[in-house]
């Protein structure tokens, strides 16, 4: 059942300076939605700080941040509201500048239609292509291309037709990739002078199609979600108990709405797709338990059924352990659960994405640990072709393999915008580093079972009379890692322990000789060392490693590979000055002369461990004393 709404959410997007804010501002004025006092302020500001030579500078209506007005650009989404007799509109005026793509994506994720500005004089620009791609991937099917600044292009039809054709090609290619068909229209306009915004312009008699406003008033805000299977992510469990005297435990009166029940328990959430009725059989995921909807409340009223978008609470039959994040669905039409997916990402973080890194995955079904296991490709902007890639830089759009810590319910994004969408969060900074859309699950995860080994790691280690662990020494070049590692290994060996030392000499020349010093290679270097160290702990060994390993995320990656408690991070906190004064291999001298790029401490950063198991400064103490400190930690934690 298509839901026709009397409210349309659309975004204005396109490259910087293509006139988005001007068009929206002018549209608001022409539809009679600009109050007199705001008009007076606008007139005064236009002549004072406007960029239109005395004419009204409509962009000032939307660029509400001081920095935006100073720089004359849009930094973040502005939301404006206006209505015509036909419809209400919520418009997200989004920034065109590449640096603020994340804010454009923020706007797009809430919209069902997009108004894409193209400068008639400049044609389609790379950022226009990026925005069209993001709109298509996010499932926006209604695209209006407003070919703007026709006043500066002599109202030239041929020029408009060329751009119109390119828009069709672009939308076609983007739709193909997104597996959806876009409905599109191109309209020649002058946002500044108002041509073809609300009335057909007599300066372009060759155009007889819809005006911008006609298109906005008539485009279908049809939401596929209403036809999709029923999904309800439990948002909040409402529970309370009556002490029998009509009072809640805190002395409040027991609410009348609870019908005198001794306890109240209902599950609150929004129907994100489909519909649900009283009496429906439903399944709870991930547990798989089935039950029946006994009562359905919309706000404070009982209802027989609820449609997509309704915020409801359900009373279910029987007693079940249902928590926030659980998915309610019909048993015959339940979402799949998987732990390995192919997904599309819009990468938003300044730090590029490399395979192997761990993040938090968050969807309507909750938050869980995730790892990017492989980067498949990056989408090129010229023709939306898939290009081989080993990383995604900020604002890149690409396809990657993502694995989760456990099976998780989902629907492909093309079938459900709510249950197929997710964001990735950095575990330390809490920043949102990407938004993503699930394409499909990958079966490989469930087909490869770990080889069952009869002999366990505990048995092997037991034979050695020790508990395996990895002593990970990290610090600047020249801080004394290798010296300390050798001394420590000697001491352990002398006590009869089985050990292995990994350092640059035995790793870089063999296992990792194919790796260079780019960021991607450095991460891969650490990942391999981590995997080798893990195998060695499985063999029951005490492993000592001595690598600069400057990045926190990489060390955390190794920590996550190993069994809890087996990763002992030791920060050799010798100061840069002390290391540089020692300079045993003359590397600092070379780096200072600019002969070594990306040298940690000189022209590349070292991220100190925030909470290492041990921190040592070798400058003030003997190597032996430092090694003793590590030994006492090992004894204390029962490793030796």
């Amino acid at each position, binding site marked *: 059942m298509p839901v026709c709404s009397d409210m349309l959410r659309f975004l204005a997007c396109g490259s910087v300076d293509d006139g988005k804010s001007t068009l929206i501002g002018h549209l608001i004025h022409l539809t009679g939605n600009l109050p007199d006092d705001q008009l007076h302020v606008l007139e005064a500001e236009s002549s004072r700080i406007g960029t239109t030579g005395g004419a009204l500078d409509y962009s000032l*209506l939307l660029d509400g941040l001081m920095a935006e007005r100073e720089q004359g650009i849009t930094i973040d989404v502005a939301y404006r509201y206006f209505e015509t007799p036909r419809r209400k509109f919520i418009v997200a005026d989004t920034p065109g500048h590449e640096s603020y793509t994340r804010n454009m994506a923020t706007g797009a994720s809430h919209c069902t239609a997009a108004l894409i500005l193209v400068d008639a004089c400049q044609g389609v620009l790379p950022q226009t292509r990026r925005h069209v791609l993001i709109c298509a991937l996010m499932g926006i099917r209604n695209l209006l291309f407003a070919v703007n600044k026709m006043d500066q292009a002599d109202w030239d039809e041929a020029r408009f037709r060329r751009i119109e054709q390119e828009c069709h090609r672009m939308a076609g290619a983007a739709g193909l990739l997104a597996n959806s068909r876009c409905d599109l229209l191109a309209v020649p306009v002058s946002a500044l002078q108002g041509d073809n915004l609300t009335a057909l312009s007599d300066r372009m008699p060759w155009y007889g199609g819809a005006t911008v406003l006609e298109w906005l008033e008539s485009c279908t805000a049809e939401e596929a979600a209403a036809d999709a299977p029923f999904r309800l992510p439990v948002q909040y469990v409402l529970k309370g108990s009556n002490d029998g005297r009509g009072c809640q435990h805190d002395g409040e009166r027991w609410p009348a709405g609870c019908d005198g029940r001794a306890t109240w328990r209902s599950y609150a959430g929004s129907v994100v797709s489909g519909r649900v009725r009283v009496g429906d059989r439903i399944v709870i995921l991930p547990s798989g338990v089935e039950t029946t909807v006994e009562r359905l409340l919309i706000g404070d009223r009982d209802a027989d059924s609820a449609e997509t978008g309704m915020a409801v609470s359900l009373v279910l039959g029987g007693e079940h352990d249902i928590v926030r994040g659980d998915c309610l669905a019909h048993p015959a039409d339940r979402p799949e659960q998987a732990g390995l997916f192919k997904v599309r990402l819009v990468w938003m973080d300044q730090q590029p994405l490399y395979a192997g890194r761990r993040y938090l995955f968050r969807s309507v079904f909750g938050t869980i640990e995730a790892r990017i296991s492989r980067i498949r490709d990056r989408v090129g902007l010229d023709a939306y072709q898939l290009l081989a890639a080993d990383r995604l830089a900020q604002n890149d759009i690409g396809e990657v393999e993502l694995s989760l810590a456990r099976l998780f319910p989902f629907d492909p994004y093309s079938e459900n915008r709510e249950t197929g969408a997710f964001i990735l969060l950095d575990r330390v900074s809490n920043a949102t580093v990407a938004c993503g859309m699930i394409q499909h699950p990958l079966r490989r995860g469930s087909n490869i079972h770990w080889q069952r080994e009869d002999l366990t790691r505990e048995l092997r280690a037991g034979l050695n009379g020790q508990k395996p662990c990895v002593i990970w020494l990290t610090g600047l070049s020249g801080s004394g890692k290798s010296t300390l590692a050798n001394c420590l290994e000697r001491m352990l060996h002398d006590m009869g322990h089985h050990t292995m030392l990994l350092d640059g000499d035995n790793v870089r020349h063999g296992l990792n000789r194919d790796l260079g010093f780019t960021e991607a290679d450095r991460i891969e270097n650490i990942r391999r060392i981590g995997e080798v160290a893990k195998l060695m702990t499985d063999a029951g060994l005490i492993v000592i490693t001595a690598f600069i390993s400057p990045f926190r995320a990489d060390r955390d990656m190794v920590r996550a590979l190993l069994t809890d408690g087996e990763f002992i991070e030791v920060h050799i906190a010798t100061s840069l000055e002390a290391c540089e004064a020692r300079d045993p291999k003359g590397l600092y001298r070379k780096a200072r002369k600019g002969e070594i790029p990306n040298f940690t401490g000189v022209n590349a950063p070292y991220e100190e461990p925030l909470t290492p198991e041990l921190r040592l400064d070798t400058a003030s103490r003997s190597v032996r004393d430092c090694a003793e400190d590590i030994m006492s930690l090992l004894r204390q934690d029962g490793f030796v």
Partner: protein
Amino acid sequence: MSRVTALTQLENESIRIIREAVAEAERPVMLYSIGKDSSVMLHLALKAFYPLKPPFPLLHVDTTWKFKEMIHFRNETVRRLGLELITHTNPDGLRDGISPLIHGSRLYTDIMKTDALKQALNEHRFDMVFGGARRDEEKSRAKERVFSFRDAGHRWEPRGQRPELWDIPNLRRNRGESFRVFPLSNWTELDVWRYIDQESIPVVPLYFSAERPIVERGGQLIMLDDERLELEPGEQPQLRRIRFRTLGCYPLTAGVESAASSVAEIIAELETVCTSERCGRLIDFDQAGSMEKKKQEGYF
């Protein structure tokens, strides 16, 4: 074909926002400013947790300069609904006798509103704070997220807001950091009144037209709510039929001449009116980029 009205959509989205914030909060609170937006927000919260009561207290930052009718309405509402109310007044400001009439609106707002709010939030360590602000009120508010991150000093960083994708907010925060949550972000003034009409939500009578004692000052109609407002030379108190479109502190909130004395009449008036809502809020105009600066410092 079923038709979902805009008002129903807005209502459902707001309830979803309120539930999400509470589910992720350790110590949620609702800023209750007594105005029409607070009334609507509270009504939505009652629905969101029905039949139980909302699992958070209301917080009112009392500047001591609110209209008397507002305080009466606040106490009546809390009593009727059986909710917990925390009120806070900045003790330093009270001691120093900070007044909008003597110290100017800017200093007064800093001390009695922004500082007072921060004191209350710190004291109770609230980490998820609901506010009734709407994006259509003011240009810098139009830029703010629904779930708006605040650092440990309660500051807003307008240039570095977290992306807000779909309905999957990123509410992770470290100790001391918090979120301001605006469930009514996408409502307009008209939506608010249409919803008040639809749901028969009680509001402060000052919104309805009545004969009230006023003086004209700087082109604005200032109501004489108590004896603290001293008349300037040449000012004549007079009775005029006025109402308020927004309610703040009385010397800083001007009335408008209007005959609208019911919700239906207010809606009819707004559908034809040619001025915007906050033009009666004097604090919005006390410096350039006024609201953005206040918000950066922690104002709502």
